[in-house]
C-alpha cells in the first residue's frame, strides 16, 4: 500500500530553529530515511519552503491569493511517499520520524493515484 505522509508542524517554531538545531534534526531524520530507502519502502520525500512563499489559486473565480490555502495552527511543511505492507508499517516509519523530530503531527493518507512523472 502506498501512503503519503503529510508533515504538519508549527511553522514559526520550525523556522525559529538555529542552523545547528535544523542540521541536527535533519541528521537524525536522514538516519531513518536511509534505513527505509534501503528497504525500498521510502519513495520521494519533500520539504516545503515556508507558507509565506505560497500562493493559492482559487479555482472558482481564478483569483490568486497570498499564502497557503488553509490557515491552521500547524502548517503543511513537507511530505513523504512510502510503499509499505500495511498501515501498521506506515505508522512504524512515522514513529521513527517522530523520535528524530518531535512536535507537530504526521497525517498518513493512502494514495489513490500515483504517477511517477518524468
Amino acid at each position: 500500500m502506498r501512503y503519503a505522509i503529510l508533515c504538519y508542524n508549527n511553522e514559526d517554531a520550525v523556522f525559529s530553529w538555529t542552523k545547528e538545531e535544523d542540521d541536527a534534526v535533519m541528521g537524525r531524520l536522514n538516519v531513518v530515511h536511509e534505513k527505509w530507502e534501503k528497504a525500498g519502502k521510502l519513495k520521494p520525500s519533500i520539504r516545503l519552503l515556508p507558507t509565506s512563499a505560497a500562493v493559492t489559486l482559487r479555482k472558482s473565480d481564478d483569483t490568486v491569493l497570498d499564502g497557503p490555502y488553509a490557515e491552521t495552527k500547524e502548517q503543511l511543511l513537507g511530505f513523504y511517499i512510502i510503499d509499505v505492507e500495511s498501515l501498521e508499517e506506515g505508522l512504524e516509519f512515522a514513529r521513527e520520524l517522530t523520535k528524530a523530530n518531535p512536535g507537530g503531527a504526521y497525517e498518513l493518507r493512502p494514495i489513490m493515484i500515483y504517477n511517477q512523472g518524468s
Partner: protein
Amino acid sequence: MSDLGWIEGALTAARPQAVAALLRYFRDLDLAEEAFQDACLRALKAWPANGPPRDAASWLIMVGRNAAIDSVRKRSKLTALPDEQVLSDGEDREEVEAERLDGADYRDDVLRLLFICCHPDLPATQQVALALRIVSGLSVKQIARAFLVGESAMEQRITRAKAKVAGAGVPFEAPGPVERAERLAAVAAMLYLVFNEGYSAGSDQSERASLCDEAIRLTRLLLRMYAAEPEIMGLLALMLLQHSRWAARFASDGNAVLLDDQDRALWKRPLIQEGLALIDKAMLARKPGPYQIQAAIAGLHARAQTADETDWAGIEQLYAALETHTPSPVVTLNRAVAVSKLHGPQAALNMISPLAERLDKYFYFHGMRGAMLKELGQTREAREAFNKAIALANTPAEAAHIRQHLDALSAQK
C-alpha cells in the same frame, strides 16, 4: 534535540505573539514581559511531563495573564488597586483570546509590539536593541555582545529606550488602513536595521551575524500575518538573498570577498530559492516598492551562475527604477557600478562625480571612485581616493579590502 531544547525553541517562536497579546491586555510593557517570563517558567515545569500544548502561544498568554493578575493582586495590598479596566475588558477573556489567536486581528498585536520599538525619537541602534530585547527576547548580555559593548552600557541603553517609549504612550487603538500601512513601513525599516546590524558583522563575529537570522525570523512571522503585502515579501526576499551569500563573503583570513570574486558554490540554495519565489510572488501584485526592487537586484545576482553571466543591463534598469522611487546619492552610486560594467569606468565616474560633495563622508563612494580610477590607470588619484576610503572604513574587513587595493597599486609601480 533534547526535550528542553524543543521547549526553548517553542518558547522563542511563541514569544512575539504572546508578549504582544499580553501587552494589549496589561497595557504595560514591563508587566507583559514579566507575565511572559512567569508563563515560560511554568512551561518548563509543565511541558516536559505533559508534552507541549498544541498552541504554545495561547497557552503562554493564558498562563501568563493569570500569573500576572495574581501578582498584581498581591502587590495591590501594598499599593492602590489598579483600575479594573486596565486589567480586563471582559469576563470570558480566555475564550476570546483563544479565538483571536486563529484570527487575523491578532496580527495587529504583533505589529504593535514591533511598532513600539520604532519610536522616531530613538536612534537606530536603540530601536534595534529594543526590538531584540522585547520582541526576540535576547538577553541583555547577548545584545551587548552583538553590539560589542559592555553589558551595563547596553542595560542602560535599553532602560532609557524603554522609558522613552513608555513616556510616548503606546498606540492601543486598532489601526485604520492608513495607520496600519504606516506602522508596517516603520516596522519593515526597523527589521532591515536589525538585519544590517548582522550583515555588517565581520567573519569572526558570529553573535552579531546571528542578528541576520533573527531579522529573517521576525520578517517571516510578519509576512505570515500580512501575507498580501508585496513590500514585506520584498523585504524578506532581500534579506534571504543577501544572507544566502554569507559563507562566501569572507576569505579564510577574514577579509571581505567582493561579489564578483565570491565562490558561488558557497551560496545557500534554499535561501536563494525562497527569495526568488517571494520576488515572483510579489511581482504578481504589481505594486513595486524599494524593497521589492532591491530584492529583484539581489535576485539577478543570485540567478547568475558566474559573475560574468550577471545581467548588468537588468540591474542598471532596476537601480534606475529605485532612483525614481527613493532618490538618493547612494542609489546612484550603486547604479554607477552597473554602468561601469556596461559602459566602462569613465561612464561610471561621470555619473558619480556630481555626488562628491554629498558622499564625501561615505566609505563606498571613495572606494568605488578609487576602483574606477585604478582601472583607468590614474594611479595617483586612485591612491588619494583609497586613502580617503580607508579613513572612513566602518569595519576592519572594509579597511582590509581597501588595503588590498592600495597594495596592488604599490605593486604596479
